[in-house]
């Protein structure tokens, strides 16, 4: 059955974000002859429409007041785009934008949203959304009793769309008022490759025993290649103050989907796995052979990280 789909796009330095392109590709797969539209808000939106691969129509406003996300400013614009596009399915990223916009937009459209989906599919014409629940222990598949169906989707759930962008653009109104004022922002500087982008991620847990151990993990990442590997941490390690919260992997941290995830002294709690189980391959170092992390791992080394990590560094340095 054809679906008209609106992707709520986000701009990253004036171009559609990687998540936006992924959603556009997902939307193309689901449209089945229906239309794919995108909304883009903020500086450079009209120009970015041409890069929104897979969308036939773009709803845009170049108003710079949209650059900093404020839910109350985005809501009327996105709602107008949904209504004008005739969408029966609205997709957005599980991002700062989607987390707030998803539920509020659904409320205003008298419908529902499924949050943090890892799959959105068409089952004989019915949209189904699947998402992790119970800290990642379970997954739940939902249908919608109302239209449009709204879903926020986890990064990397689809491959990015390629090809030409939207041929037609429709102007959305400029931003209105917001009752929430943004008065400042503090950015955590993270040196090197972001854990969400790195092809190899080394994760450290409470079993490391001390904050200094993260230096060893950084050395391991450097031995693998500074252009390839980045270091993250479990929440237990972050809560102990050993590593910055911005580098936490898991349900309440970042979701990473590298080609290779190397978990060091991490037990593999469901809430941690919720942030890394999409990795192509997991390798674990843990002194407990019954640790849950091994149930997700292709390879495991049972041993003390204090001995295994230096040995791995030496081995990787050999190239």
């Amino acid at each position, binding site marked *: 059955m054809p679906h008209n789909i609106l992707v709520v796009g986000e701009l990253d330095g004036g171009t559609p974000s990687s998540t936006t392109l992924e959603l556009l590709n997902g939307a193309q797969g689901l449209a089945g002859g229906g239309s794919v539209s995108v909304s883009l808000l903020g500086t450079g939106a009209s120009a970015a429409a041409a890069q929104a691969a897979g969308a036939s129509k773009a709803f845009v406003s170049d108003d710079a007041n949209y650059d900093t996300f404020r839910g109350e400013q985005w809501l009327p614009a996105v709602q107008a785009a949904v209504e004008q596009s005739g969408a029966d399915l609205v997709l957005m990223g599980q991002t700062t934008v989607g987390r707030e916009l998803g539920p509020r937009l659904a409320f205003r459209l008298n419908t529902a949203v499924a949050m943090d989906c890892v799959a959105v599919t068409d089952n004989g014409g019915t949209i189904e959304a699947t998402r992790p629940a119970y800290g990642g222990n379970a997954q739940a598949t939902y249908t919608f009793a109302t239209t449009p169906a709204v879903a926020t989707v986890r990064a990397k759930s689809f491959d990015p769309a390629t090809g030409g962008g939207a041929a037609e653009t429709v102007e959305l109104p400029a931003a209105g008022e917001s009752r929430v004022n943004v008065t400042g922002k503090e*950015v955590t500087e993270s040196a090197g490759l972001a854990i969400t982008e790195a092809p190899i991620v080394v994760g450290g847990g409470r079993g490391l025993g001390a904050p200094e151990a993260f230096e060893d993990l950084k050395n391991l990442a450097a031995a693998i290649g500074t252009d390839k590997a980045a270091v993250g941490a479990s929440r237990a390690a972050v809560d102990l103050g050993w590593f910055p919260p911005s580098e936490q992997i898991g349900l309440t941290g970042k979701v990473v989907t590298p080609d290779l995830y190397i978990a060091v002294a991490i037990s593999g709690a469901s809430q941690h796995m919720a942030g890394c189980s999409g990795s192509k391959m997991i390798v674990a170092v843990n002194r407990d052979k019954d640790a849950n992390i091994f149930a997700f791992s292709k390879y495991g080394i049972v041993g003390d990280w204090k001995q295994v990590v230096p040995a791995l560094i030496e081995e990787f340095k050999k190239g």
Partner: protein
Amino acid sequence: MHIVVCAKQIPDPETPPAAFKIDAATNKVVPAQGIAPVLSQFDGIAAEAALRIKEAGGDGKVTVISMGGESAQAAIKQVLAMGADEGVLLNDPAFEDGDSHTTAKVLAAAIKELGDVDAVFCGRQAADWDMGQVGLLIAENLGWPVTIIAKGVALEGNALKVERVLADGFEKTEVNLPAVVTVSNEFGEPRYPKLPQIMAAAKKTVTKKTAADLGLDPSEVGKAGARLQLQKLFIPEKGAQVEFIEGETPQEQAANLVAKLKADKAI
């Protein structure tokens, strides 16, 4: 200053994965033997944030509201023991098996009924379904502004100063009362009530309310009112069959692992 804290009782999220079971016939989690349900962790943190504001102001009131079965009294009592003043249990078979939309509708109706509420604090998400919607939907129901995933909340005059967590740091925001805030674990640990406080909590009032008390029709709450329909709840495949790397020494193990990763073209 009257702050409402919304609190949910959930199966302990730290239940060992081996003890986590689903009944496929009902699409429900089977309560793990001997593991008591707990107050959703983020709700305890929201309570902590509310109590700190009450204490900093010297006066004020914190009311804890929970929608749930009779056992949710335990979650309410825990927040009362932390220092909240009153509790409300929203308890009606009609409320069961709803979605975020119906839950928020019931909570918002109860908040409206209290009348004099200045702020609502919720956890960033319930640590069972992990949806992260109810705080936002309460705000929409009440027509109040909302700011989510807070790591810091302070009251200044008639405004809340909220630091909210972003992917790459945090943002400072300001919002006039009345408002809704959802609180994240970055805020810090909730206080741990001691025995005298637990005893005192036993004496605090918990009012019970049904759908009829809140002027809600059974058709608009619970399963009947839900817009999101759960088709299937299942335990996903873990996928991997671990191969433990052999070796007499860590050096040998490291060499063997790296060789395998190379053979797999994983590095």
